[in-house]
């Protein structure tokens, strides 16, 4: 990306951010540390996800970004031997407190994975509605839900005539958008995305990014990405994670995406965003 382009994007972003800076935090991690068995993989992560913003988590492989977002919707605890310290606040309430139903949290805070994973035994339509079945959530007007979510995921026009076809017939990029529609059908207010484009071709990636920008008007998005241009293109805020050898990962620097990429305060951030390691 040329400097001129970068500045143009940066200006757009800062306009957007001016409007968003005051929005209240929707999801917030305080002093989150994570273990797998005895191995500590994350230490003291503090980060705020303001409502209806996009936050990119960047950093080299193995620094705990994916692990971190799995703590945000209580998927982390499903791994045997996984442990956690600290607090995750969703709408001001600790999601790990004893009276909170993890199923409720997972519905409010949806997730899209690295590899497109539609359910192969279901049709396209069945996949979109699968969250309702799996969680036992009741919603009327299934036809409307299917159309709305597929439209929001940018897939409606491509599949509207074959909703009853197997989901496996779609291309990888289409499957990933189908999975986004599936996550939206249970009406989450936060969407976690774990490298959603890493298995996709550039054209599909652009479509997903377009979808992310559209969705961020209504949903708070946290996206893990290895693609720094992608972070610049979609994210209002960026957090840079890093794990020194044999040490747990932590956030080195976080802030407005324009700042992280334009004028990082930490030398390691500067090196990383300029592609000097990773």
């Amino acid at each position, binding site marked *: 990306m040329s400097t001129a382009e970068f500045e143009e994007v940066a200006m757009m972003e800062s306009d957007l951010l001016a409007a968003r800076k005051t929005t209240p935090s929707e999801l917030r991690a305080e002093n989150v540390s994570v273990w797998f068995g005895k191995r500590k993989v994350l230490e003291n992560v503090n980060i705020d996800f303001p409502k209806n913003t996009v936050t990119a988590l960047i950093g080299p492989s193995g620094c705990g970004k994916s692990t971190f977002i799995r703590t945000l919707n209580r998927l982390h605890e499903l791994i045997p031997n996984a442990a956690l310290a600290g607090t995750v606040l969703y709408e001001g309430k600790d999601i790990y407190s004893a009276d909170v139903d993890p199923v409720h949290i*997972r519905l409010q805070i949806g997730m899209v*994975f690295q*590899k497109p994973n539609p*359910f*192969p*035994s279901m049709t396209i339509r069945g996949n979109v509605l699968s969250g309702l079945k799996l*969680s*036992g959530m009741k919603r009327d007007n299934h036809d409307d839900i299917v159309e709305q979510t597929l439209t929001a995921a940018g897939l409606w026009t491509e599949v509207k005539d074959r909703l009853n076809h197997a989901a496996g017939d779609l291309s990888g990029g289409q499957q990933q958008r189908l999975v986004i529609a599936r*996550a939206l059908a249970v009406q989450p207010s936060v969407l976690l995305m774990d490298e959603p484009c890493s298995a996709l071709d550039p054209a599909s990636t652009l479509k997903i990014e377009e979808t992310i920008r559209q969705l961020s008007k209504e949903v708070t998005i946290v996206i893990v990405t290895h693609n720094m241009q992608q972070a610049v293109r979609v994210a209002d805020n960026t957090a840079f994670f890093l794990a020194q050898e044999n040490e747990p990962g932590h956030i080195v620097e976080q802030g407005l995406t324009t700042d992280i990429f334009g004028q990082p305060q930490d030398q390691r951030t500067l090196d990383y965003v300029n592609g000097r390691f990773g």
Partner: protein
Amino acid sequence: MFVMAGVPFGCPQTSTSLRQHPDMAHSDLEQRDLNSAATSHRGDRVFSRIVTGAAFTSLIVLAGIAIFLGVQAVSAFQSQGLDFIFSTGWDINTDPPTAGIWGMLYGSVLLAVIGLAIAVPVALMLSIFMVFLAPQKLAAVLTNLIDLLAAIPSVIIGLWAFYILNPPAEGWQELLNQYLGWIPIFENTSQNFSGTPFIAGLVLAIMMIPIITSISREVLSRTPPDLVNAAEALGCSLWTMLRYVALPYGRGGIVGGVMLGLGRALGETIAVFFVLKLTFETNWYHIIESGGGSIATLIVSRFGEVSGPEELNLLLAAGFFLFLGTIGVNIVANLIVARTGRMQK
């Protein structure tokens, strides 16, 4: 690529020069069989012949059995006509002997259905427990135990069932009759609860459970973590994840396992021989009433005291229909597995 095989190295490889190359006039003759190159080693050739021979042996044995039994069936039909299939009875004192195996054919199916009705839910629950609930060590122990259960010879299971299972099972049937007797299948007018299709089905279930469990466990444990993750992120419970993700994914394999179990149940002889009172009347649905039929058990119970070549011939003909039944079940199983396999692709 085959067409190019006759072109010497260094030849300009544009399409026009290929077409004009003098060698190409004989290109058909010069195509090399690339596949033979892979097995050109002498040891490989010998080995591949041995393996091919072994593969054909099984086909020859299968065909041999089918032809042998088929020939016997023809002569049984000649003496008995269609009554051999559609009537029930076994009288060797008439000349020629009169025989009808309907009650036995039907009995084999009834016992298998009872067995499946008990075995499938138990085996599914067991495999779900082992894959999704049990701690790893317990699951490993259970897996081994269940495989051991499959290794118990059926004659041992038969003896055990006769001496150990039978007495309490009679009590269970009395309870069934007492509380659910208003359902026709649990009617019992004789108050004789021994040698019933229910007990025989229970024994078959014990023999089917290891097969169905070990295949279902294998299939369920291969549910892609991706899909389980997706279901978890959509707020599934264990039940909904099983219902909408794991079981549909494993359906083909599970049905295959059930069919293998069914194949075993239809052909099971000795264990049923110990616990079922063989009667030459069709017991249509009174599963806790004494007496029932089974082709395999008919054969084994008559074979020792067979009256002469004519009765032997009838028994072999009965065996032909057992053979047809089990082959049919296996073909259906393969079709189902293949069809669901394609759908999952």
